[in-house]
């Protein structure tokens, strides 16, 4: 499945956040993942209302990034992988 600019990514069925601060993880059937850095920044913004385009723009701002194409590509790779694991829908 391909992620598009106007997709509104969100956590898939049965996947949710739990814990707080540095103990914040995503729990899902048979697992849990703790994310850091840009991975965390991307997934936190996948709330089903923001478009992928909006998420990338926010990250570019937050990270004061010059290379928005790289952020976009990294985020696509990351989210498509999570979608294949059925953690994310878009």
């Amino acid at each position, binding site marked *: 499945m391909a992620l598009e600019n106007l997709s509104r990514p969100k956590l898939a069925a049965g996947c949710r956040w739990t814990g707080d601060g540095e103990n914040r993880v995503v729990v*899902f059937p048979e697992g849990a993942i703790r994310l850091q850095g840009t991975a965390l920044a991307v997934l936190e913004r996948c709330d089903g209302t923001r478009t992928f385009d909006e998420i990338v723009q926010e990250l570019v701002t937050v990270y004061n990034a010059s290379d928005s194409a790289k952020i976009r590509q990294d985020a696509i790779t990351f989210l498509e992988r999570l979608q294949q694991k059925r953690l994310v829908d878009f």
Partner: protein
Amino acid sequence: MVAAKSELGTHEWEAVFQQAAKIGTLHVHLSGGEPLAREDLTQLVSFAHGCGLYTNLITSGIGLSQQRWDELVAAGLDHIQLSFQDSREAGANWIAGTRAHAVKLGIAAMIRRSKLAFTVNLVVHRQNLDHLDEMIALAESLQPERLEIAHVQYYGWAAKNVEALLPSRTQVLESMETISAAQKRLLGKIRIDAVVPDYYAKYPKACMGGWGRRQMLIDPKGTALPCHAAAVIPGLNFENVRNQSLEWIWRESASFQKFRGEDWMPEPCRSCDRRTQDFGGCRCQALMITGDATATDPVCSLAPSHALIEEQLALANSMANPETQATEQPDFWTYRPQPK
């Protein structure tokens, strides 16, 4: 089987969940037996959810009415796993010993109408691997998020039926191809999790993620165990949640400490590069097959006792590939007797 009155009561289970959440547990799996047999199940799910735990219901689905399902959903259940014995009604009922199959299909449809995570669990073995593609197609039609293809493991009652259950090498290799093709076809739609059965693998599984590393099992009477089979290991005193805190049992009790670390490992495990990945395999399996719970899991190709597994495999590969057996074969399976 356990008499109902010696099982933990509702408040005792709630205390377990509260302690579990406090020591950092993320997931609780409500399993059995059959968890639907407990009338307070919805209340327990609700309480566990309130503690912040991710709740998983592992069930045959038998007895799950629409009303009960709606209540469980409203209580905050996160995930349900429904197991299937076969795609064919006769086969499924033959193995389970009941008329469960048709009822399960209706229950799966009911589950799918809701928004929870839904896993279909297919139990595979020698008697149904020849039509694995059909079982996968059935699972696919139920539209779960996840499909787990679980080779039977030879503990408990399966150990008494191992000759009828252990597949041939051809069956295993063909099943790996079938699964790989299904994973590609269903990529992004259904996540398929499957592992090569350990008898046919080169190295053992990291059983339970390691003894006392990732998971703790509390049985209906409150006994705390590192896994389902651990009671087979002699010389271990398992604690009860009625008497000790979960935290103490997990961190300090002799039974949970027994196979942690590396000091207990014999060679070749002690010097093996894989010891931090597979922890020497399964202690219960080592005990059951070699008589020594500290031995290298015999499924490991490096285990001194590996010949015992090879004997079992030679037998499985010398018998003719089974066709679906007629149901009138009363002695084919050894069943657990009904409790009195």
